[in-house]
């Protein structure tokens, strides 16, 4: 390895490390600023309790087991809802990307249905699926479904024609074609879809838990408001934020390590 190359590699590694450190540091800096602002009476502690007192409330909730239960319940709903929406969404997206006929039939429907705010359909979903887990899973699934379908079909349409020609020329068809050519070719767009839809899924599950639930992080926040326990509200809000953060960072890290060819 030449000297110049070694320097270049070290520099590139250094920059990547810096980027990662910045990503981790920015929320921490925000929390420190907040704590300082409350103590200096810049922020009103009745509405914006200091991170330290929110942390105190979190510890209490964690000790009683309530917090873990709510977190687990929400995560399960999120996960099941995501899968229930993403699997048919990706399948429809693949079909749309491959066939102009499927596109002709489905794209006006998607264009009409996609912009309806999912929260506005929530009462209807609750009416149909009741107050249990299934109404939350369904509302998450609906939100995820559209985003995954749209992103997958866009991803397939972006695959360069030469890659489809190679598959044709060497007789790669059927399932092998889907999993060796279509899915990896559409993967960048698919991952973007997964990131966006997980964010939306989190919003939807919390909103659904506001309206009709006896547990979950949304319930924790709503209950905090109803009983005027502002710290408890913040515990819920912060956990939702952390969840969003962990999911996004987790997906990006997974992408970096398992799909090296994406980081050209």
């Amino acid at each position, binding site marked *: 390895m030449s000297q110049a190359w070694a320097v270049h590699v070290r520099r590139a590694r250094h920059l990547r490390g810096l980027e990662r450190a910045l990503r981790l540091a920015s929320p921490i800096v925000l929390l420190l600023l907040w704590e300082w602002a409350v103590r200096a009476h810049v922020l009103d502690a009745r509405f914006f309790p200091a991170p330290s007192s929110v942390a105190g409330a979190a510890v209490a909730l964690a000790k009683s087991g309530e917090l873990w239960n709510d977190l687990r319940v929400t995560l399960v709903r999120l996960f099941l809802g995501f899968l229930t929406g993403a699997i048919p969404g990706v399948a429809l997206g693949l079909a749309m990307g491959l066939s102009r006929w499927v596109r002709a039939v489905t794209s006006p429907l998607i264009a009409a249905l996609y912009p309806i705010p999912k929260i506005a359909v929530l009462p209807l979903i609750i009416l149909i699926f009741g107050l249990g887990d299934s109404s939350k899973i369904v509302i998450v699934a609906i939100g995820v479904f559209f985003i995954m379908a749209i992103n997958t079909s866009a991803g397939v349409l972006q695959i360069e024609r030469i890659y489809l020609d190679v598959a044709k020329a060497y007789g790669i068809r059927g399932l092998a074609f889907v999993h060796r050519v279509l899915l990896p070719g559409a993967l960048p767009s698919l991952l973007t879809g997964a990131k966006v839809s997980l964010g939306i899924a989190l919003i939807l599950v919390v909103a659904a838990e506001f309206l009709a639930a006896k547990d979950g992080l949304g319930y924790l926040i709503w209950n905090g408001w109803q009983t005027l326990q502002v710290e408890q509200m913040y515990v819920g809000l912060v956990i939702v934020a952390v969840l969003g953060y962990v999911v996004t960072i987790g997906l990006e890290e997974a992408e970096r390590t398992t799909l090296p*060819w994406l980081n050209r």
Partner: protein
Amino acid sequence: MDREMIVDAVSKRFEDGTTALDGVSLEFARGEFAAIVGPSGCGKTTLLRILAGLEEPTSGHVELAAGGGRRDHMAMVFQEQSIYPWMRVRENVAVGLHGLGLALAAARAKVEEQLDLVGLRAFAGAFPHQLSGGMKQRVSIARAFASERRVLLMDEPFAALDEQTKIGLHGELLRIWEHTRKTVVFITHGIEESVVLADRVYVMTGRPGRIHARVDVPFSRPRDVVALRGDPEFGRLVVHVWGLLREGMAA
């Protein structure tokens, strides 16, 4: 000599009205090495895509002595970058084995063998973005050889390579060809390259592409791709083909 395939009065007109090929008729013998030269945009790639079964002619047809679909018998080396960025080198080569129904061990051995031939064994585990342009092209050649198909269609496969690698691969290609005796249709801009490699050189006219002339290359096999260039007959043939090409462009 046994006949491999017949191209009978093939014309191609694209949807936008471009006529790329106009009545091309050719005959390829089994095990023959044919080269096609012609000006840029004259329809060489279009012709090869039709032979490969990736495109249908507007009129005329292609007939195979072996029968069956064109796609089952043709292995194509594409002009542009065509290996999958999401597969490692060895998986890309294994694409050529698709449908051969080899057992895993046999498939692995075959991939190793092809990678050895193109000098990329050390890069079996690399991803395409870690390779140079020439190395990617060699992966795509290995993929075509791995497929064990009767006819090898090569669309300017060495155009992106430096002169040294190119001459090295000429030797390799001929060596492999001599012991497999596949039928090869080799498209190139390089007149010298066509004379070094082929038994027959077809010269095409400018667009719409037609066959302007056919030149038989008399050199015996096996050929020494370097020594051959010193042969006075070689120089004479190159000039001859060059003249035909100019004539065809004016036609």
